[in-house]
């Protein structure tokens, strides 16, 4: 049983490297990443698992880091946007997001790209409806979504063409 203000040590893997960090039971994953590890790509916004700006991958699956307690990632692998630089899927998504003007203010972009990567990892040929369904947990207030759908479609298509 954990107690408030009790110090917990969380050992986990982030972006391929093992780390250990002290948190409290109420520390959210997003704060541990941003304030503790200075991985600022994940953003805080709605604080209630609606907007997706804080999306990171835990053991390859997207989660909203604003509502996941930090200690829950003990022994797991966390991937943030900073860890995707050398990822093949990421290279395709980067080109597609940029070429399709799917980025405006950029605040949603790291979470959006991680969600898109997770989608394509599971479903390399998503239909337009499947994209809209999978991505509905990531809000963008700038683009109107159309160019993001087009970017994901293009990334999927180019990956197939190899």
């Amino acid at each position, binding site marked *: 049983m954990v107690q408030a203000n009790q110090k917990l040590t969380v050992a986990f893997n982030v972006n391929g490297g093992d780390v250990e960090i002290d948190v409290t039971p109420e520390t959210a994953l997003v704060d541990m990443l941003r304030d503790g590890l200075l991985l600022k790509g994940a953003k805080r*916004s709605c604080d209630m698992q609606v907007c997706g700006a804080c999306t990171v991958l835990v053991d390859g699956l997207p989660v909203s880091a604003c509502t996941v307690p930090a200690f829950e990632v003990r022994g797991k692998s966390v991937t943030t946007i900073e860890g995707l630089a050398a990822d093949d899927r990421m290279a395709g998504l980067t080109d597609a*997001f940029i070429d399709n003007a799917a980025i405006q203010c950029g605040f949603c972009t790291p979470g959006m790209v991680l969600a898109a990567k997770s989608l394509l990892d599971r479903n390399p040929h998503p239909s337009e409806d499947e994209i809209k369904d999978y991505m509905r947990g990531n809000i963008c207030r*700038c683009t109107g979504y159309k160019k993001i759908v087009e970017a994901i479609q293009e990334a999927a298509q180019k990956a197939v063409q190899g």
Partner: protein
Amino acid sequence: MTQQKFNTVGQSVRRIDSYDKISGRAVYSVDVVVPGMAYAKLVPSPLPHALIKSIDASKARALPGVYAVLTAAELVNMETHYGSDKKDRPIVAMNKVRFQGEPVAAVAAVDLATAEAAAELVEVEYEALSAASDLTSALLPDAEPIHDSNYCHEYGYEWGDVDAAFAGCDRIFEDTFVFPMVYHYAMEPHTCVVSYEHDRIRTWTSAQHPFLVRAELARIFGMQLDQVQVVVPYVGGGYGSKSYTKIEPLVAALSREAGRPVRLAQSVEESMKTVRRHAARATIRTGVMNDGTFVARECLSYVDTGGYTDNGVRVTERISDRIVGPYIFDNVRVKSYGIYTNSTPAGSFRSIGGPQASWACESQTDIIAEALGIDPIQLRLKNLAKKGDEVRRGKRPLEGDLAPKLQMVLDKFGWDTYVREDPSPTVKRGIGFACNVTNSGASPTSTSLVRFHADGSSTVYIGTTEIGQGSRSVMAQIAAEELRIPLASIKVIGSDTDAVPYDRSTGSSRSTTLMGLAVHDAAVDVREQLLEIAAKHFETFADQIEAADGKATFKGESMTFGALVREMFGGSGGELMGRGYVTQNHASGRLTQDPVFWEVSIGAAEVEVDEDTGTVKLLRYVSASDPGKAINPKQVEGQDEGAAMQAIGHSMFEEMLFEDGQFLNPNLVDYRVPTFEDLPGEFETVLIEFGDGPGPYGSKGVGEGGIVCVAPAIANAIFNATGVRLRELPLTPERVWRAIEKSKQ
């Protein structure tokens, strides 16, 4: 316009901030860390309207780790109020609170948890007053006054002989339309770090208008402009919510009190209690002849500006400026009032007053068309303003004909060949159209500095904030074009008032037109200097030299621009500086009249309405964006698509709800914004490029137009599908279903 050959202008080049943003490296205000900074938490008023009887912050101050508590008592040796048009907003509440969530105090502490704990310990005693959180209750004769009265601002204009004209009309239509309170939801909530030091103030903030924040802080704390630095990192969405001054004075005062830098990062709930769009109620009376000729129009609008004025003065004016529509009337009488209510203060939001005005005037256009038995497009074309018409008397005439622009949207939509196919007897389809022109509120005050380095690369300094609109890229494209160097040789520095020259603001779709001209002129200034140096070198005249691809060429001999700079300074270094000043008296002669340009908005919608449930599905939406010249076409489309999607929200489901002044849905679960699933089946933007704008290459502002016509186009489509006319937004299933049921009785 002569056809000009461009290198980068007109191409959808990659945004120069793309990699920063997609890699997570881009720094926003929420990412700024200043050594030694304290963390702030606000103490919000739980009541919407009350007198403050006492504040006891002693327990909070005694908590270990607390550096300071700011209350009204600490607002000494400084100005206590701020605001863009009326300085009616106290930095923290003084004597009285006027909306739920108004900061009564603020705490700075060693960490956020301590600040939050201390905020809970601040004891405030209130005497509740009766609250009016909507227009109707605030306008009651016995309503408790929120300020000296509940009237914030009054505006109007008139031409022709309105009463006589109405008397001579065949038909008169009068309708009242209601527009809800809505929230911008910029995904980065308002965030600010201030370091107040004895002889200077340093500020990092998510503000759209850093130079206006600088002026406000200088005034409040009695400093000179050069003592106040405002840095705006990347901004996580603005849409008007970060215009003018918001939380900066509070954080500066708290930093002064705490004696160290202070960071306030608001939650979404706190930002929903910082600013919103004005709710509105507009009544339009229109007199017409049986052949469809518009003769007279009279409008009376009320806009709800909440507990403080914020941008209520301009919004009150703009709804009246925009409610006459893109039509020619010889007789007009327009009046509007800004009204205080006990709710979140209302400020700028993408096209101030525009969606509210167009919801009323373009819904009524279809009501008139139906009653007269005239096709709604033909009725519009018959009355539409033409190029050179003063669509508002005394203001700038329209730059271009609207009819061909409307036709481009109709063609893209397939309006003329539309065949209605209802999926079932109770699931019906229909189409709707709307258009308007809006007077941009852009003030022509922008400056730019272009430094040209000894290796042929260049740094461009702009005050425009990068809020997602792509200003950095567009300014780089303009500079590259005029300097005749590759885009990759340009770096853009933005939004640090200590480093970049003055720009009035980032809003009103103004940046490409006005800062674009400043950058254009500064780059031309550099190019002319390069040509002068080359002329000396080649012993000829400047106009004999060709400047292209980073080189000056004369009679087959070339010298790189970098070499010219080095030659001028006689060594290996040196640089040139070019300046661009944009004022009302700009050499182009095109900025003297108000508005600087008219922004065009056109939209066509197809909907499917389920009469059994009231559910409305937006099958198709075609919008128009009229940039004159699209410097980066995909960015222009992106602005338009984003604006239209925000309007789909306020048209279909968004509404901030208040009951007795209590804000019922201050979060993203209970206040829903559009998601991927709200994308229309077809969603297109038509780009109109007639080169008729006052900006560089014939460009003019876009970015607001897309939000203006969505609601009336959808409501007109619902009418076309079902025969039911809706006059109140949002068009929720319940509202639509009730209207359909009522129509059956």
